[in-house]
């Protein structure tokens, strides 16, 4: 009677995550559903995302290029990629806050691994990112980067971001369910981070203070995609930092998830 074994909290957490990942017929479906819900009865559906992002980049790119008095051909591709990556990352972070709160209806009524709700959110944001990636592709056709095999490393970069999205989702999802103020803090931090992170500006624009950007972890997450894709560069520091954050994040997440997983249903 294998069901009768008492599991430790850690085993429950691992089981939860494992079962979540294996439920590949559930979270992709729920993720799609969320996107579809937003665009039901609209003719072009999720491509509204592409259009709105495109318009934004089309307007902001030349504007900031002008303001920073940089060469628009180099700046535009940089800005487009940075902005779309930022949307990807910031949406993941802000969505993470409501992962469990918004799934209260499910969580309180049925037994499903909690990780499913997180995977659903990550999946949804990856889909949105793919829609926006069309813009990057178009921009890169007009402003081609230096072509080399290293370009392809950007895929690993995106995968790393998605991997990190998972632990961030669990941590923020739990924190925001327990402490409702955190969500407000996160929203504000994201707004601030948009300006403080090299997205519309480049780290080298800081001159002798350009090293300061290295203290911003988000900068490194942008770099591991932006560097290879745009410049064929591998910034060892960025990859290293992201690697450490990923490992540390997962360790932290396992600890926290083991300890508080059973409380989530009571918090929401």
């Amino acid at each position, binding site marked *: 009677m294998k069901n009768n074994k008492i599991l430790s909290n850690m085993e429950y957490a691992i089981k939860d995550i494992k079962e979540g990942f294996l439920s590949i*017929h559930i979270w992709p479906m729920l993720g799609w559903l969320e996107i579809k819900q937003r665009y039901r009865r609209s003719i072009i559906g999720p491509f509204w995302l592409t259009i709105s992002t495109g318009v934004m980049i089309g307007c902001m790119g030349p504007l900031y290029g002008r303001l920073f008095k940089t060469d628009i051909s180099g700046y535009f591709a940089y800005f487009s990629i940075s902005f779309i990556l930022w949307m990807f990352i910031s949406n993941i972070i802000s969505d993470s806050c409501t992962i469990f709160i918004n799934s209260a209806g499910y969580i309180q009524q049925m*037994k499903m691994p909690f990780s499913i709700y997180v995977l659903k959110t990550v999946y949804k944001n990856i889909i949105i990112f793919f829609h926006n990636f069309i813009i990057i592709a178009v921009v890169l056709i007009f402003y081609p980067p230096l072509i080399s095999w290293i370009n392809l490393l950007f895929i690993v970069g995106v995968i790393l971001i998605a991997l990190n999205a998972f632990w961030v989702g669990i941590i923020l999802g739990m924190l925001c369910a327990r*402490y409702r103020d955190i969500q407000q803090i996160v929203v504000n931090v994201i707004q601030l981070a948009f300006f403080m992170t090299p997205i519309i500006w480049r780290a080298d624009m800081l001159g002798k203070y350009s090293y300061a950007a290295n203290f911003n972890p988000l900068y490194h997450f942008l770099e591991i995609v932006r560097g290879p894709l745009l410049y064929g560069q591998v910034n060892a520091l960025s990859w290293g930092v992201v690697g450490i954050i990923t490992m540390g994040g997962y360790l932290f997440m396992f600890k926290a998830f083991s300890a508080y997983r059973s409380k989530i*249903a009571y*918090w929401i």
Partner: protein
Amino acid sequence: MHQIIAKNLVVEYPIFEWGDRSIRSSIVNSATGGKLLSSGNKTIAVRALDGLDFSIQEGDRIGLVGHNGCGKSTLLKVLAGALQPSSGELFISGKIASMLSISVGLDSEATGYENIYIRGAIMGLKPAEIDILVEDICSFADLGDYINLPIRTYSSGMWMRLAFAISTSMPADIILMDEWLSAGDSTFSTKANHRIQSLVDGAKILVIASHSPDLIRRSCNRILRLEHGRIVSEVPGGYISRPQKKAQVKNIFTKDSHSITSESSLEDYEEGAVDNWEVNRAIPMVERLEKWALLGDPSYDENALTSWSKSVDFFQTPKFKSAYKRGMNSGHQILRPRGSTIDIGLNWRVAICCWAAEYAKKLEGDFVECGTNTGIDSLAVCEYIDINKSKKTFWLFDTFEGIPAEQISEEELAAGRLAESKANYFSCFEMVKNNFKSFPGAILIRGTVPESLKTVNIEKVAYLAIDMGIAYPEKAALEYFWNKLIPGGIVVLGGYGWAPYRSIKNAIDKFAAEKNFEVMTLPTGQGLIVKN
């Protein structure tokens, strides 16, 4: 082996006050050692389940009863796996089907068809498994072409039907229900009830919470009462499992002459090696019944009468149901407290009265009932035969305050008739008058029988119902009306066949011998006479 075992199961809901839910209080508290906000820093917890110990084995049908907030729903949620217990142990083995919220996950913008897959996936089914079920679900929900439309276009009834069809589409070992699932209009609800019943029958364990004592008694073998998160009592329910039922029947049949008399076995019989009546008889009755698929669930199991394999469709006709309900809701206090509307399960008895009245309607003569109480039988009869249309006069005799003490014999007193009368009957004249307000043909005569019989002029009687609980007035009433009964007139004696009321049978039989007729004893405990 499917089972659920709980040891010292505790569930506490933390109540976060506004202050506690904000991070400020946590930070402030950690900085001040929790002293500053001493009133705000305590997380108040509500103990919804307070150390439950129970063991549910295969075959159990558990009914959870108790007031709102006693912990029933919390317990179901814990069993469903939605809530993890705060402490204690819980072992569950078996596939669980939670019917607690059958419409969670339905997406109003998706079509009915898409929703089958969505809801199915949430219930833990793989798409390939849903493929197999989808046809059954569609045909059961019976939504026609609506199945291809977004469910936001559905009426609430259609929505419910879809949710119901999906949730009940696959068998499970353990079924959890918060109140008996029902859905839709009357035709669908009959179908739905059938489906859920067969699902429950097929399940190894049922745990149901309900506010309906009748439902719980019928469908559960163990009734747990919860109060303030604890099990305060456990009583057996009326439900008998299949194996138990078979054992019971086996017990009955092995006691009598139907038991094995020859060496031939059932195998010989099945192989056709032997095929004659003697051998047939040699096979234990219970096995014969089983072989012929006669042993299902009881078709009727009420009022100390259980029947197998007998059709009881007559209870299901809208006409009878409505009539029966009218009588049952007459405000009587038999086996139930004042103000209760619990159905005490007199269907078969009332059906016999209705049938007899329907028969007598075509005859010449009045209707008479001695022993009306609140009108359980007679109200049903009035409605069933549509007395206003048939222009019959229905004389209703009763003291309307129970059995008169002076009429009770020594023997009957010893058998507890007086105490019983005091428990079941009360002064109800005004209430009964009101009950029959809409039937001007029904005339209430208050007083003791037989004295009150002479106060009115009744010439011919076509239908006579007598049910007064004791011998003296019953026999007197039958004697008084015997010559007034027209040929073919019908008499229903309410207590004639009940063994504990043998004094009535003895008295009536004496009269029957004098007049040279026989009373038919019915399985319901009633006695039936047709005068020739």
